[in-house]
């Protein structure tokens, strides 16, 4: 398996839960057609004419761009629309969007391609075919105008929402041409614009979904209201793997509003009432017995011991190797060793999991926020027993996704309930406590790093041993590669690791699984892997007596893009110039999701140990930048999400269940924690990288390295709330 293939595997593997699709990017590209029965799909495009499959144009020039991915805050709705609109030659002021319904994609042989929205791939994995869709539509509009004017199509130009004929000065708006254009065959392989000709791509345009997010009008799945709708509150066995043993329905059936008390699958029970508050109130009073099963034995202490054993285990899967690291380390005069660790983490989307479902005869309809419309369709069909072609999935804005809404558990629950109450829509809402205790947590890992330094202080050998849980082993064991989960090596595989110039290198993973469900948490394994490597590199620089930036520069000599973005962050931060008194800096870099990132943190730590993160400079090279303001927003947001994990967040396990229950016991970063974040966009062009996640990886190590500079303390176990930063 070559480097490129491994990277493709990784890019795909990190996406999220798959039920239907598992195609490599190349496969997706081939699968995407530019033709499909093109009837308008939603009320947003009603009255318009589809021109190809990606664009619907109305007589008033309203241009509806179809979006197959999901908007969860990351701005992909606007970014994808920019890509299509630029090739279309659209008037941006007329552009609006609609989701492609998953059932339409399914019925049209997945003409709109991958719906999965994860792994920071919404744009980078669909950029070519959505631009092709815009270009095809523009070509059709030009052909329609040419036919009307009796001129050659090559003399006509679609631009800013109209086709013009320079020689005659004739002009027709797209709204006037759409009906004729929509009847033409959809051309294939239309030439795309060169980056220098872009007029909409690369512009810091306002998002298309902001106004409704400032006045309460934005509708999330939790806001869905349907005639006759009932509300459900659910309790799943708090012990992972446990089952529902029984419940005393009559105890609550007389409570206000209660209509039903029903099992949900084999591990949960729900109260269904006229309002959710009534359902929740009754559920809290419902006597329930659980069959906790063997999972009840699991706890954080046992897990830590299991992982610690893996750090020195003789067998481990190799993710990156050069030379003979074990041999060199065994004979080295000077070695450095450190052990790090990172805990389970709940995604804690602010909108708790929820889904509305209605069974009507042999038809099923669901209303849901999902990161994977295709998988939701499949899961809903499977749970209901209804054939795929009788299922409708209505996608809504997501009140946060971060990987959690790639899973279909909450949709299945809603469908299983709706099956028992035919003819009535049932909205299932998880309480925050339910959400906190039934996540797909970021996997717990530990990492032991050992390096040999030569006499000149250069790294002669490095062994990185990760021990911990595998996401794929839990979610998709059939996708392990001979038992190996390559996604655990995010940031460490040859294509991403910056320090491949180290002559003797071994990076391996001892899989040590637990009873806790794990999944793709924004940034996935880059989060902890970058902490391990970038903090340890910082340790080595200190042992070698070298400046952390200079030390990295020498080691990144063969990784020019890593080096360039590191330099960009260092330059903006003023590395090399003295920071203000009492302020200390840390630096790091990472490559993930197809992009290169680096950060410099400035912190102060009082003698008593009070940490203040004062300033972050975060540089990113995502290749091409579709919307600079939105990329900046993702850098800011990614840093903040990573800062929660750095400072506060941690899920622990006792008696087979998660101890934390709400935002009081699972703290996250807030305004007062947030430093000044300066984003440095350093795009080189030439490739399309992700932006929704990459910066997370550099948030924690930059701060941890700055804490060392301030205190002399190496904090190797997250989160910092458990650490004592006091210093002399």
């Amino acid at each position, binding site marked *: 398996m070559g480097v490129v293939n491994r990277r493709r595997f990784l890019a795909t593997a990190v996406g999220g839960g798959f039920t239907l699709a598992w195609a490599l990017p190349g496969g997706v590209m081939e699968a995407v057609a530019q033709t499909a029965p093109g009837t308008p799909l939603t009320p947003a495009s009603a009255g318009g004419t589809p021109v190809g499959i990606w664009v619907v144009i109305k007589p008033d020039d309203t241009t509806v761009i179809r979006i197959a991915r999901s908007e969860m*805050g990351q701005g992909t709705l606007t970014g994808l629309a920019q890509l299509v609109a630029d090739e279309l030659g659209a008037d941006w002021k007329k552009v609006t969007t609609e989701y492609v319904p998953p059932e339409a994609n399914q019925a049209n042989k997945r003409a709109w391609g991958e719906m999965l929205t994860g792994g920071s791939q919404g744009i980078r994995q669909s950029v070519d075919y959505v631009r092709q869709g815009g270009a095809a539509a523009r070509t059709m509009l030009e052909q329609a105008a040419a036919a009307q004017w009796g001129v050659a199509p090559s003399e006509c130009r679609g631009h800013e929402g109209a086709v013009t004929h320079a020689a005659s000065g004739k002009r027709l708006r797209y709204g006037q041409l759409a009906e004729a254009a929509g009847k033409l065959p959809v051309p294939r392989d239309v030439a795309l614009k060169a980056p220098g000709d872009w007029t909409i791509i690369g512009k810091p345009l306002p998002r298309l979904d*902001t106004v409704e997010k400032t006045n309460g009008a934005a509708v999330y799945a939790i806001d869905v209201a349907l005639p006759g709708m009932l509300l459900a509150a659910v309790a799943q066995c708090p012990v992972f793997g446990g089952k529902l043993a029984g419940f005393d329905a009559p105890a609550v059936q007389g409570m206000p509003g209660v209509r039903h008390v029903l099992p949900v699958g084999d591990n949960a029970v729900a109260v269904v009432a006229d309002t959710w508050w009534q359902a929740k109130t009754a559920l809290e009073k419902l006597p329930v017995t659980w069959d906790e099963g063997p999972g009840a034995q699991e706890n954080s202490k046992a897990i830590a011991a299991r992982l610690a054993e893996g750090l020195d285990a003789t067998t481990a899967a190799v993710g990156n190797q050069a030379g003979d690291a074990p041999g060199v380390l065994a004979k080295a005069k000077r070695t450095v060793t450190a052990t790090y660790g990172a805990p389970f983490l709940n995604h804690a989307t602010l909108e708790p999991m929820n889904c509305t479902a209605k069974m009507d005869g042999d038809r099923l309809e669901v209303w849901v926020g999902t990161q994977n419309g295709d998988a939701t369709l499949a899961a809903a069909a499977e749970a209901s027993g209804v054939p795929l072609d009788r299922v409708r999935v209505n996608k809504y804005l997501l009140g946060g996704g971060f990987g959690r809404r790639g899973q279909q558990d909450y949709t299945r629950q809603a469908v299983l309930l709706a099956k028992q109450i035919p003819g009535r829509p049932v909205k299932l809402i998880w309480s925050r406590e339910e959400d906190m205790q039934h996540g797909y947590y970021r996997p717990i890992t530990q990492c032991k790093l050992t390096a040999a330094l030569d006499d000149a202080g250069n790294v002669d050998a490095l062994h990185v041993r990760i021990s911990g849980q595998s996401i794929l082993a839990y979610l998709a064991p059939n996708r392990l590669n001979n038992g190996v989960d390559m996604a655990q090596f995010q940031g460490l595989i040859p294509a991403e690791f910056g320090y491949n110039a180290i002559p003797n290198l071994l990076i391996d993973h001892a899989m040590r699984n637990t009873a806790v469900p794990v999944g793709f948490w924004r940034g996935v394994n880059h989060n902890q892997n970058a902490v391990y490597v970038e903090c340890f590199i910082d340790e080595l620089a200190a042992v070698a007596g070298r400046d952390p930036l200079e030390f990295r520069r020498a080691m990144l000599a063969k990784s020019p893009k890593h080096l360039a973005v590191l330099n960009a962050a260092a330059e903006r931060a003023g590395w090399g110039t003295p920071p203000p008194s009492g302020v200390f800096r840390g630096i790091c870099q990472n490559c993930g999701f197809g992009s290169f990132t680096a950060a410099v943190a400035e912190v102060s730590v009082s003698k008593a140990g009070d940490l203040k993160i004062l300033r972050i400079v975060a540089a990113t090279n995502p290749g091409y930048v579709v919307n600079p303001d939105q990329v900046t927003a993702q850098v800011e947001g990614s840093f903040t999400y990573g800062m929660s994990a750095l400072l506060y967040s941690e899920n622990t396990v006792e008696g087979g269940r998660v101890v934390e229950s709400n935002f009081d016991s699972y703290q996250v970063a807030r305004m007062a924690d947030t430093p000044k974040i300066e984003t440095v966009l350093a795009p080189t062009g030439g490739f399309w990288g992700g932006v929704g996640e990459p910066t997370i990886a550099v948030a924690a190590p930059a701060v941890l390295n700055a804490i060392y500079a301030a205190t002399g303390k190496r904090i190797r176990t997250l989160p910092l709330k458990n650490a004592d930063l006091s210093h002399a």
Partner: protein
Amino acid sequence: MVKLDVNGRAHEIDVDPDTPLLWVLREQLGMTGTKYGCGVAQCGACTVHVDGQVTRSCQLPVGSVSGKVLTIEGLSPDSSHPVQAAWLAHQVPQCGYCQSGQIMAAVALLNEKPQPTNDDINEAMTNICRCGTYQRIRVAIHSVAGGKA
């Protein structure tokens, strides 16, 4: 029957007076701009004003509310309140789920302190945003204070 004044409109609602104001707004009145995030007054997604005071509605029994309730829907008829305009100008929202609460908290802060310092903002703006829009919220609040929204 519970009497409730929301956004200048009087309601008489047949609901258990122990029901939190949040759920009455969302379920009985169908005003879903105010969000459920935690139910324990930690996250602030449910923030509204009661007689001008910033209030987390998820833990406030509706029967105890005697003042005038202002929600995001009542802030302005056309999204033109200076804080809303600042949110738009600075492209604050990402997923947007917390932003009704953030905006209501910011309006209350600016009503009390028209020129808030960073420390004032840290103290008043304790609402959780998981997307990480805090920096833009801070900039937007300062822009309103500076009359530049």
